Every structure is written in structure tokens, then in C-alpha cells.
């Protein structure tokens, strides 16, 4: 098999970020890309967020770990790949990654403890939209800085749109920005207000409505996060620069079905608007074209299998043709919208084989191995 264009692109880049809608096989594709790069001799870090239990089990990731673990060659043997390189895999725990970041940026122990214990911090680090995205890119940056890997493959968390992911650092900074909040709370200075526990009318209203008194927590949060903000800001701009680095490649993962196609096109538009060119497209669960059988085929099948079974075989062929036609339309729409980006169509895989066997097969499709 010759090397597909997409593989050439991926082999040239240091970072591969897989984006796409939920349920399209993003995690499987990320793992297969990592394996393919390892088969081509690279030392690869695979960062995944929330793999299915079966995939995690297959990759020996049953222990959730924020640190990369080397997948042993013996373990990966069922993939059937000749792995000249190595894959280190990790399942990201967003909350823990965020805590690690605070630990790294906090000027002293006391500040660190106060931030980590604060209710508002705890809520935003695990629940605020974008915090998962932020921790994913923060980890990407950290791994890249170690210079221990030839390539890093990131499986992005499912989000409503790609921009959430791209804007995560910026949005988080806005959220954490104590100065902006201070101005909102009281242009004249929050200290006096908080000390008097009067708060602004809005804060008083909020307390009255929600019945949760956030005043003390906010005050504590603001004073403790202040020392970290510079570090967060710096980190966020470094992450943004990394996403825009020519060594980074965004790969869109989709299936040819109409709904994922629609979402993928919307994602691609957002990437383009953010001046982040898409480096490749992977279309999973693709049904290849089924030519019309020669006229005498039905009779030959009838003779070999009997009328009933031959009828079922022909009906199955008809369904395969419908799916192939549907997929051709979906792929056509993707190509039209995405332009001439290198793409690989990964045929729907045989059911009932092991997860590692499937990963090996997908890696072979992607890299022409």
C-alpha cells in the first residue's frame, strides 16, 4: 500500500489534535494514529480524555492515570503492527490536571492550599464549560515542553463546538480575571464592600434568589487566585501559540452520516475563521462503493446457495449499495466544504474482533502499512 497523503502530513508534524462530533470514533482514531506513528518509528504520547471501557481495557489503561504509561510491545501484539517506536498513553483527569497546574503556578504552599480548597475553584475546575478543554491543551503544552516525544496525539473532549476548545484558555482567563470581577462587583473597590458584607445590589439579589451565600468564598477566591493569574495568563498565551504552531495539525474525524457531516462542516468553518487550517480528514465507518453485479450473478448464487439464501445475499448487496450511495454523498459534502485537505476513508471494520485488532486495522488504513 502506498503512503496516504494524510500519513505524510502527520509524519511531518509534532502535534496532532483530533477534533470532531461525539460518537464518530475520535478516540479510536487518535489511538490508531498514535500506533501508526509508532509503527513508523516515532516515540508517541497519546492523550485521551474518556475512552470507552473496552478501549481503555485494550490499551491497558484501566488505571486512570495523569502520567503517561508506556504500552508494552507484548500488550500491543494483537494489533499485528511492527512497532519500531513506542506509545505512551494517558487518560486525562481534567480536575487533577487543573490542580496540578495550580500547584505549579502557586507562589507558595499557603496560596496553593487556599485555592484548592475554595468552593468556587472546585466548581469551575470540574464543571465550567471549557475547563476540560483548557486542561487538555494545558497538558499538551506541558508534554510538548518535555521534548520527550517525537509526536503527541490529542483526543479532544466532546464539546459543543471546536471554538470552545480553541477559546478555552482565553475564556478561562476571563473567568479568573480578578480585576474584571472586581470592577463588576464594585468600581469603588471590593475590599470595603466585602468587609462590610453589603455587596452590590446584584450580589445581594443573587444571594436572596439562590439562597447560597457566595460572598465569603468569592472574597477568598479573589485574594488567593490573584497570585496565580500572571502564570495562568502566560500559560494561556503559550498554549495559543502552540495551537497555531506550524508543527501542530488539526485532524477532523467524522463518519459519512448526515448529522456528523453537518457538525464536521460547522467545526471546519470555525477552524478556518480562527485561522487554524485543517491538516486532514478521517472518515470512519465508510461503506465503499458496491458495483452492480454481472447479470448472471443471481443465477450463479441461486445454483450455489439455493433460492432462499441467494435472495438474502442479493438483498444484503442491495443494502450495501444504499449505504455506499449514502456515504458517497456524505463524503462528497465533506470534500466540497473542506476543500482539498488530505483525507483517508476508513472502511467500516469487521464486527466481533478485539479492540486491538481493530486499532491495528485502522492504523494500517491510515498509514498504508
Amino acid at each position, binding site marked *: 500500500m502506498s503512503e496516504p497523503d494524510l500519513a505524510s502530513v502527520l509524519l511531518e508534524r509534532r502535534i496532532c489534535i483530533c477534533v470532531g462530533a461525539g460518537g464518530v470514533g475520535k478516540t479510536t482514531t487518535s489511538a490508531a494514529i498514535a500506533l501508526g506513528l509508532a509503527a513508523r518509528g516515532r516515540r508517541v504520547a497519546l492523550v485521551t480524555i474518556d475512552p470507552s471501557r473496552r478501549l481503555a481495557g485494550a490499551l491497558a489503561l484501566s488505571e486512570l492515570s495523569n502520567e503517561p504509561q508506556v504500552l508494552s510491545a507484548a500488550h500491543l501484539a494483537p494489533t499485528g503492527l511492527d512497532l519500531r517506536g513506542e506509545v505512551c498513553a494517558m487518560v486525562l483527569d481534567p480536575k487533577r490536571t487543573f490542580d496540578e497546574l495550580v500547584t505549579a503556578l502557586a507562589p507558595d504552599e499557603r496560596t496553593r492550599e487556599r485555592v484548592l480548597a475554595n468552593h468556587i475553584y472546585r466548581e469551575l475546575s470540574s464543571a465550567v464549560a471549557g475547563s476540560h478543554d483548557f486542561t487538555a491543551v494545558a497538558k499538551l503544552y506541558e508534554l510538548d515542553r518535555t521534548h520527550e516525544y517525537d509526536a503527541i496525539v490529542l483526543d479532544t473532549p466532546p464539546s459543543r463546538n471546536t471554538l470552545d476548545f480553541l477559546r478555552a484558555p482565553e475564556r478561562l482567563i476571563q473567568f479568573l480575571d480578578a480585576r474584571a470581577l472586581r470592577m463588576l462587583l464594585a468600581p469603588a473597590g471590593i475590599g470595603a464592600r466585602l468587609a462590610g458584607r453589603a455587596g452590590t*445590589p446584584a450580589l445581594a439579589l443573587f444571594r436572596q434568589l*439562590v439562597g447560597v451565600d457566595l460572598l465569603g468564598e468569592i472574597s477568598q477566591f479573589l485574594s488567593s487566585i490573584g497570585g496565580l493569574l500572571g502564570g495562568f495568563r502566560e500559560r494561556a498565551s503559550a498554549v495559543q501559540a502552540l495551537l497555531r504552531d506550524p508543527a501542530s495539525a488539526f485532524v477532523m474525524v467524522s463518519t459519512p452520516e448526515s448529522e456528523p457531516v453537518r457538525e464536521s462542516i460547522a467545526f471546519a468553518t470555525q477552524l478556518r475563521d480562527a485561522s487554524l487550517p485543517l491538516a486532514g480528514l478521517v472518515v470512519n465507518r465508510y461503506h465503499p462503493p458496491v458495483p452492480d*453485479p454481472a447479470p448472471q450473478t443471481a443465477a450463479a448464487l441461486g445454483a*450455489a446457495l439455493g433460492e432462499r439464501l441467494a435472495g*438474502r*445475499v442479493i438483498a444484503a448487496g442491495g443494502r450495501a449499495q444504499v449505504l455506499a450511495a449514502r456515504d458517497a454523498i456524505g463524503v462528497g459534502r465533506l470534500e466540497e466544504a473542506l476543500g482539498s485537505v488530505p483525507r483517508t476513508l476508513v472502511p467500516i471494520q469487521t464486527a466481533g474482533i478485539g479492540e486491538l485488532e481493530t486499532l491495528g486495522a485502522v492504523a494500517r488504513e491510515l498509514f498504508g502499512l
Partner: protein
Amino acid sequence: MTSAATATPLLERRLLWVLGKGGVGRTTVAAALGLLGARRGARTIVAEVSARGELPELFGHSAGEGEMELADGLWTIQVDTRRALDEYLHEHLPLRMLADLVGATRLISYLAAATPGLRELLNTGKVWELAQPQRRVPLGDPYELVVADAPASGHALGLLTAPRSFARAAQAGPIARQGGRIDEMLHDRAQTGLIGVARPAEAAVTELLELRASLRESAELDFDLVVVNYVPPDGVSAADGRALADALARPAGLSADARAAIQRARFEERLASVAREQVAALVAELDGVPVIELPALYVERVGRAEAESLGERLGRAL
């Protein structure tokens, strides 16, 4: 298939939640239920809490703000946290206090985002509001059926547990009362139903079972029905599959076209047999929750006609 007799009253409840992993066809099921409800004469709305605009798209419309009519008797809305918060504030605050809010919207949004579970409570609260016989929003006409298309599993759990958390954790105040009222409706089997959706594939089945375990544990809620989407046709049976393998193993006599056709049929048979295993595993694990299978559709895209026919199937099975 499990008997659906116990689920018969499902369509007579006011509020149906549709839950499941991304990509399993939740929105198709929500649309099918919505069309079924409307056809039966109930003024129906499908609320997209995931707010991806999939439902208007399925009907060939672009997503808009507020309640939007899609078909006779069928409406849709994209639930938006910010709007829900605005509506809530307007309902609960006296007019003179609203003036104070001008310029404070960002602060309120900040506080709402930082308050554990509040976003979820606001979204669930909006769905609850749609299902009230007396609407809270000005000029709102009541709906007899609300189908809530929930976001993917983890977020859905937050939506269903937030009201109870607030009812218990908040000190007195309107939110605690509101949380209590919403939680009561969620647990009222005469008013609210929970429908899980899966594909006959390992990841979707596992995730649905995990969601069910969490629902039972943290919210004392359970599915009233599970819908398995995309079930491949029986076509070729396992015994047929062996006969096909034998035919392929014979040394000669088949053209390349005939062999390719047989290989495709075997491929389909293996997909179908894995799907059957997954459905069987799901049914066994669900111990008694009715399961309805919907067939894989061999169409380019699922549109209104397909959703209608799936709705009719659901109607017959329920």
C-alpha cells in the same frame, strides 16, 4: 423484546426525557416521540437541552430563538442557560429591583457559573416550566407533552440531580423551593418518564448502563423505556453465515462477483450478530425495563418522514 405493557402510560405523561451517549440518535428518537405526540393531538414541544439545533435541521429549518413551530402541533426550543436565568430573574424579582440588574448581567452570569449545579438547575427548570399547565413566561401557551432531548450522558445526570441538590443544600429561598418542586415532578411517574437510547454497540450500551446506575444511585430515578436504534436487519442468520462460509471455501464454481456478494452478506451477518449480542446483553442487564428496537434505516439522511415512521413504530410498541 421485553413486554412493553408496563410502559403503556408513558405517552400520557407530560414530560419525557431522552438520554444517551453522543451519536446514538437521541434527537431522532426525540423527534419521533414529538411527532407521535402531535399526531395523537397533544400540543407538543421538543426541548433541545444540548442546543445543537439538530431538531430544526431535521425538519429543514435553521435554528432560531424561543419556541418555534415545526409542524402541526409540534414545536421546538433550544434551551439556553442565559435566557433561562433571565426568565427566572424576571419572574422572581420585583420590577424596581430589575433596574438594579442593568449592567450586572455579567456578574450574575459569573455567579451562576460558579455556583455548583446552578446551570443545570436553570436548564432543567426551563424544561419544567415548559411542562407546566400554567406557563410562567408571559403569553406562554401550555404544552401537553414536553420531550427533552438531553445532552450526552454525564451532563444529563447533572440535569436530573441538580434540583434535588438545591432543594437539600440551599438555605431557605426561592431556589430551594423551586428545586423541590422540579424534583417532585421528576420523581412523579404519572408525569415524568425517562427514555434511554443506545446503539447496539459496546460503547453505547456500556455508557447507557453506567448512566442508569448513576441515575438510580444519585437521583433514585430509572429508565421507563430503552430504545435501541440502528438495529440491523436479520437478513442472513448465523446458520446461513456458515452455509455462506462453506460456499466460499469450495475450490471453484463461483464468479468474482458472486464471491464478493457472499462476502458482503457475511460481513453484514457478523455486524448483525454482534448487534444482537449487544441487545441481548443490554436486555439482560436492564432486568425488566422494556426495550424497543428501531431498525437501521437505509436512507441518505434521516428527515421528517423517517422520524414519523419511527414514531409510528414507537406508538405501536408502547
